[in-house]
């Protein structure tokens, strides 16, 4: 296989117009110059190296990229980084303790075998966290939990153990 010498003239970034964004991510304010079309998912993953937020479809159906935006679950693939400027974003990386100890939702997922490949898991957890941290009372019936989980696809588990994990996490979480 012929090998070319590295091309020195090739730029590292595109020639897209760029904008300055300032986003509070997991409690820390970050500022970057980014392409105006950069999706928030790519911003988190590739600018900030927060690769726990996964990308499954980039059209809003699978929910793998779900993060909290101003405390509410939202699709990072359907938000431009420029739109998030001035807002607060929370990702899966913020949940565990500094010593790696798991958040009650994470712990419940582990206890209930609610993940297999783990690709959808961060999005699932952020969606659930958003509901737990909202003012509304979560309906912990099977149907209620399944409704809450709709919007997040999982291809491995068949969801049953995720439903159990949400219930278990709700019991373990401090009320409110």
């Amino acid at each position, binding site marked *: 296989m012929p090998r070319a010498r590295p091309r020195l003239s090739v730029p590292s970034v595109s020639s897209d117009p760029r904008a300055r964004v300032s986003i509070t991510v997991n409690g820390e304010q970050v500022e970057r110059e980014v392409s105006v079309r950069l999706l928030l998912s790519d911003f988190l*993953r590739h600018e900030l190296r927060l690769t726990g937020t996964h990308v499954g479809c980039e059209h809003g159906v699978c929910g793998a990229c779900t993060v909290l935006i101003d405390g509410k679950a939202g699709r990072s693939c359907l938000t431009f980084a420029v739109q998030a400027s001035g807002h607060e974003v929370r990702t899966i990386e913020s949940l565990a303790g500094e010593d790696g100890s798991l958040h009650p939702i994470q712990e419940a997922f582990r206890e209930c075998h609610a993940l297999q490949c*783990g690709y959808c898991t961060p999005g699932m957890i952020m969606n659930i966290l958003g509901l737990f941290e909202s003012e509304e009372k979560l309906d912990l019936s099977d149907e209620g939990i399944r409704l809450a989980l709709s919007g997040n696809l999982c291809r491995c588990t068949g969801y049953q153990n995720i439903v159990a994990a949400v219930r278990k996490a709700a019991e373990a979480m401090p009320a409110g």
Partner: protein
Amino acid sequence: MSTRAFGSRIRRTIDPALLRGEGAFVDDIPLANPLHAAFVRSPYARARILSIDVAAARAHPGVVAVYTGEDIGVLDREMPLLIPHSSMRDARTQRPLAKGDVYYVGQTIVMVVAVDRYTAEDAAALVEVEYEPRPVAVDIEEAVKPGAPLVHDTHPGNVAAYFVQVSGKPDEAIPEAEHVTKIKVRVERSTAAPMECRAVAAQFDPVTGELTVWDGTQAPISVRGGLASIFNLDEDKVRVIAPNVGGGFGQKVLLFYPDELLVPMAAMQLGRPVKYIEDRRENFIGSSQERAQVHAIELYAKKTGEVIALRDSFLHDTGAFIPYGIAVAQVASTSIAGPYRIPNIWVEFTAVYTPTVPVTPYRGCGRPQSCFAIERAMDQLAEELGLDRFEVRRRNLIAEDQFPWTREGLLFADGLRVSLDSGQYQKALDMVSEKLAPKDFAAEQAKARAAGRYLGLGLAFYVEGTGLGPYEGGHIKVHPITGKVYVNTGLTTQGQGHETVFAQIVADQLGVAVEDVILVEGDTRAFDWGVATFASRAATVSGNAIHKAALLVRKQIIHAAANMLEASEDDIELRDGAAWIRGTDRRAPLAAIATATNPLRYAFNEAAKAATQFAPASRHDGPPLDEGQHPGLEATDYYSPACATWAYGVHGAIVEVDPDLCDVKIRKYVCIHDCGNMINPTLVEGQVMGGIAQGLGGAMYERIEYDREGNPQNANFVDFLVPYATEVPNVEVLHLETPSPLNPLGVKGVGEAGCIAVGAVIASGIEDALAPLGAGKFRQTPITPSMIHAALEGADGR
């Protein structure tokens, strides 16, 4: 360890990292300043390429390279045929980049490499390709008709392969039949849709001359072999790593997808890391699919319901190419008699080229189709003979004392005999019957009908040949400083939990905690003998190889510990991370033994110091290492199965159909399942429940909607309906554990099991529910509301 790890519901060791978002999937691997690839793909199902103009794309700012088939040197060739077979003539495989002709919508024609994926997509849109479209026949039944447009001019009738298999003497048995049931069934095209699409990244190190490829593949060792061969590199100069992989389900084991070759090529040529992260649309038009088959099945029976012969003739859609050979069709054909004795079988198939995405195995691999055929036929036979659906099955099931039940004449996908090795089929049927209580249900059904509600009972049995060879290996090493046990095998994991179940196997033999056993797989540098993760084979083939390697290391530990503790080997027991003299408190920790078995030891740590407190690990006069001895605690062994081991199960469901909306609700779903000895029941249940959800997708929701021109109309998650939590019912999973007599652990595969029977169960249930409305038969999946509506309209006489 006081309790046995094997068989226990142990939490997965991989979970904390995945839960914290610390998984490392291909696109998460940090690479220095990587370039990104995007493809120009065919918008036509069949066309001649008249011209390709890449000038504008090359000139686009941020573009580093643009490749057509003319620019890729040694890669400009037809890709390998993985499994040759005499039933195929001139089997067709695709080129990494199309030249001359395109054969399906989505086929790769040009690769663009740019500074980011956004720019690469911009440039791909600037490539101008002029096509001359050609006529197509997309549906398999159309494609085999005389005069149908051809996918490949070389293959008249679009016949890719034709094969007949015979077991017993069907010609002699058929005239003896007192009743014949004939039905035709159809299963539609679907796809695995793993949550993570495919992904490849490559980096070439000019200093060491090493090519490193991160590939979300199920088969890194084979990928490495192929790359080394095609690029003419020593295998040790190519390292292929399958890191965390977000689901595979068979789709990630094609050798090769175009990107798996082109991305490493570009990385070598351009001197920068290159990555290709497939997007969801590309996954729908560029990555393998499966399932479309049409079966005409005939059961020849006695009046008692005993089936004495079976004939099945089916068409199998192989898509535009047949890179995997006839594997899917062969599995379907050899599974056609299910769990039933049926001693005389004649089964033929025609694999048909269609101008669609190539077909390779997707979880189930032909079994959901053959299960659908035989189980729908058994229901029909029951109805025609006036027998209960449970009873007709009971009269045909292989009895416990009849194993092994060999279907002489049939060869499985591994080329080995079909021999169902063990099971308790009658008991499984009794268990599902107990759960569904068909007599009570009949009363409830009648009552519901009187109230205008339509309940139905669905039932289906399946068998699954699992644990295919040829072999896998296991390597185990005890580390001297920490005493931790490292295990390697040639597989990859896409969520099955190998790291946990293999640790369970090792933990029992070496007397260590499961958390202290660390599996490293999916990396050709860690272990490079082996096949891949597919065909429900990991637990059986690698599991037994690792078990055998663990027995060797166990022996080494006991031998060394006996010397060190100056005791007899018979008195040594292994538990709690140490070797003990039985009945005493005298022990040598594993780390100390691992240290002591290395003749060169520095007192780096406590283990080393501790080791000096004992007698030598090895006692003989002569050099520190005796002839044939190796330092440390380490062993490798392999397991090669003589033939597949057959798992099985039976599913039953109660469904309710609302005829006014044609809506189907699953009120109850029960699965009786037997995969031999279970290493970890929780994980087995996870596999089964996930498989059932995927099967339910195929039963009611998922179908690739090709239009008449061969354009997939739903290449996205908006219209390809993967079920959400709201669509999947709770499932009750009950286990039987009939050990496989074929391997030391007595295990059978479980990965694919869940999905196989679901289509047949749902069809059976809907048919039962709507029988009083005269809706007729449901012999096609997925069963959509529009199909139920059409059935009811037909019943209304319109």
